[in-house]
């Protein structure tokens, strides 16, 4: 069943190559449909290949495509195991829906075909990342998704803000990649290979605790860059400059989960390094709370979702750091459903409002666009953690598992619980501000429901957000049994046993959601002046949150400004004065020597004649006398 695995990567790649060269002739909307076809067929192939796992009893396999650098275990090989299968299904499934949505959303854009070229390139890169059978190939995909992300954030590159955002994302990701690369070098130095097969089996014999901790922490640096964790999260809110389908696909559902995937994939290493794991969990918890508070006060509909994404990624880090790998991956999946849904819904709203993103200028859209409103409402309930929607099950499993660890993790559990409350509040705030209340938009915009190519993906994603959580409930751990072969070298952390414990913990988190959500609903479902006063009541905290704790200013002052200063010194001090000075000095020395020598060249033949004669005489005298 694994002979055609390479097609899963090759199909979107072929789509990208084809559209790159022929997109201009194919045009709109056919290029969009072609890209969607490539993505959808990859999904179908993945589903067929994953079927044995779903049936149960199939072993993981490695498919060697081409021997690249066999000496260091860096070949083009695909590892097909349940974890890879789940990731591939999420990426291609959610990705295909977003492809279809984008056909409607990007309608009328001058570079319609180029958008789908990049989108397909992203799919191929992400699938390379998750299907890789060794760290070298994973790194290849890792960098390629960075590239596609750069291309797509800066898709509207004529806007200076978009170009700057793309650059920022790239640079911040490089910082993370730096750590990741050192981690890979340490892995190679310890194991002599980069192949998963040669690493995970022997991890506990080869690695000491110190080395495992070093590798784990460096991998965390890489993962924090790609998955937007504190302190490297700053690129993600800016990445909202890209078209909304991009935000949905790359910066919410798939690419940003690469860090979570990396840690889950490397679970065998983290198992030996409790300090590294605890750091992962702590970073995750801090990120979750940090970003959630920022999301509270945002006015831009996409910025709320961006910070919410960072916050939810924090949950996933909290889970994988606590050893609850299945819970983390489970939340990754459910989050992909409802966050893609929320982003696409936001895209539909922005589309309808003629590119208005300020929620203060929305309101009352429920009647104008009921499908978007209801599907987004489902997404809101799902992310808020209202049972029985998807977010409830995954978030509850994370919180339960973290609680079960006890000790330091109890503190992280409280952070997670508070974050759940805040999450429910800001999501309720967003939905109410956009869809309820009096219309606050100007007279000349006429909001309208999106075309069917956009609403159908919304409805499908809403359906998944409702039922997706049932894959892994405490009563039927289907996903856990499915994923178990991928985590054979670790002991999985689970929520505490027993129905009573579950009821208490779930009750607590549901209560947090209900309190937060209800408070948000009540606070914002009133006239504008009232909730403006309500927000003013939280000053100066609210302003700090709205400006995202001014982290960008801090980084600007602490890192960017000194960096520019250093570059200035290097350019104008060192390069211009010393290096150019040396080169120019040699030049002018030669020139001055030439000035001296040129006086010999008078142009008068007789002068040359005298010299000639003098020279000849000297030689003659030397011949006669000297010897």
């Amino acid at each position: 069943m694994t002979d055609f695995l390479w097609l899963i990567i090759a199909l979107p790649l072929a789509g990208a190559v084809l559209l790159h060269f022929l997109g201009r002739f194919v045009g709109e909307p056919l290029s969009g449909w072609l890209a969607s076809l490539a993505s959808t067929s990859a999904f179908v192939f993945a589903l067929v290949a994953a079927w044995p796992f779903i049936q149960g009893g199939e072993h993981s396999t490695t498919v060697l495509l081409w021997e690249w650098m066999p000496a260091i275990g860096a070949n083009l090989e695909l590892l097909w195991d349940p974890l890879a299968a789940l990731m591939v299904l999420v990426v291609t499934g959610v990705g295909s829906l977003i492809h279809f949505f984008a056909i409607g959303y990007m309608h009328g854009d001058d570079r319609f075909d180029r958008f789908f070229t990049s989108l397909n390139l992203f799919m191929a890169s992400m699938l390379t990342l998750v299907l890789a059978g060794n760290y070298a190939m994973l790194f290849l995909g890792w960098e390629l998704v960075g590239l596609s992300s750069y291309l797509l954030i800066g898709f509207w590159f004529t806007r200076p803000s978009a170009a700057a955002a793309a650059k920022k994302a790239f640079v911040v990701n490089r910082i993370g990649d730096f750590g990741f690369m050192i981690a890979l070098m340490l892995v190679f130095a310890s194991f002599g290979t980069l192949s998963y097969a040669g690493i995970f089996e022997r991890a506990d014999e080869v690695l000491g605790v110190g080395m495992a901790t070093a590798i784990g922490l460096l991998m965390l640096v890489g993962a924090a860059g790609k998955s937007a964790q504190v302190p490297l999260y700053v690129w993600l809110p800016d990445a909202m400059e890209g078209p909304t389908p991009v935000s949905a696909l790359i910066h919410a559902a798939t690419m940003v989960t690469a860090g979570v995937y990396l840690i889950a994939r490397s679970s065998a290493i983290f198992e030996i390094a409790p300090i590294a794991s605890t750091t992962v969990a702590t970073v995750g918890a801090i990120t979750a709370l940090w970003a959630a508070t920022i999301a509270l006060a945002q006015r831009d509909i996409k910025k709320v979702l961006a910070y919410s994404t960072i916050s939810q990624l924090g949950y996933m880090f909290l889970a994988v750091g606590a050893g609850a790998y299945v819970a983390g991956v489970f939340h990754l999946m459910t989050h992909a459903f409802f966050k893609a849904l929320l982003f696409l819904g936001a895209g539909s709203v922005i589309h309808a409002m003629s590119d208005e993103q300020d929620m203060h200028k929305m309101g009352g859209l429920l009647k104008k666009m009921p499908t978007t409103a209801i599907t987004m409402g489902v997404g809101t309930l799902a992310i808020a953690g209202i049972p029985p929607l998807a977010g409830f099950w995954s978030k509850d499993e994370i919180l339960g598992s973290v609680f079960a660890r006890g000790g330091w993790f109890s503190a992280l559990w409280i952070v997670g619980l508070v974050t759940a409350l805040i999450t429910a509040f800001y999501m309720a705030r967003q939905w109410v501000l956009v869809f309820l209340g009096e219309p606050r938009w100007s007279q000349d915009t006429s909001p309208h429901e999106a075309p069917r190519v956009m609403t159908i993906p919304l409805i499908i994603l809403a359906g998944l957000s409702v039922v997706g959580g049932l894959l892994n409930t405490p009563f039927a751990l289907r996903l856990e049994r499915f994923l178990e072969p991928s985590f054979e070298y670790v002991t999985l952390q689970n929520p505490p046993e027993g129905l009573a414990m579950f009821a208490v913990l779930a009750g607590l988190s549901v209560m947090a959601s209900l309190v937060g959500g209800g408070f948000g609903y009540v606070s914002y479902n009133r006239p504008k002046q009232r909730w403006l006063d309500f927000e003013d009541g939280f000053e100066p905290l609210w302003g700090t949150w709205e400006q995202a704790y001014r982290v960008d200013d801090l980084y600007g002052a602490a890192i960017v400004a000194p960096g520019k200063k250093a570059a200035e010194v290097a350019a104008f001090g060192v390069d211009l004065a010393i290096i150019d000075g040396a080169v120019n000095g040699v030049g002018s020395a030669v020139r001055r020597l030439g000035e001296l020598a040129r006086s010999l060249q008078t142009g008068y033949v007789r002068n040359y004649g005298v010299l000639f004669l003098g020279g000849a005489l000297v030689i003659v005298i030397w011949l006669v006398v000297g010897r």
Partner: protein
Amino acid sequence: MIVSAGYYMALAAALFVIGALGMLLRRNVLVMFMCIELMLNAVNLTLISAGRALNDLNGQVAVFFILVVAAAEVVVGLAIIVAIFRRRSTASIDELSELRG
């Protein structure tokens, strides 16, 4: 009467000095050219007379080479002088100092 090689050498030296001084002091290109020929032939004379005095044919052989080369040089040199004269209507060497550094 037998004239000894020394006289020939002296004549050659005198001719050479006349040629060299003419080369250095005169301005007319044509005259300078003749001075060069004078110097060449002064050298030829020394070679011939030395060869004769030492009873060595190599002196004459060398002179033949010099004559051939000098003939070729005359052809080129005169052609250049004629070309310059056509263009400039002057034969003064001091006018031709464009290559001054």
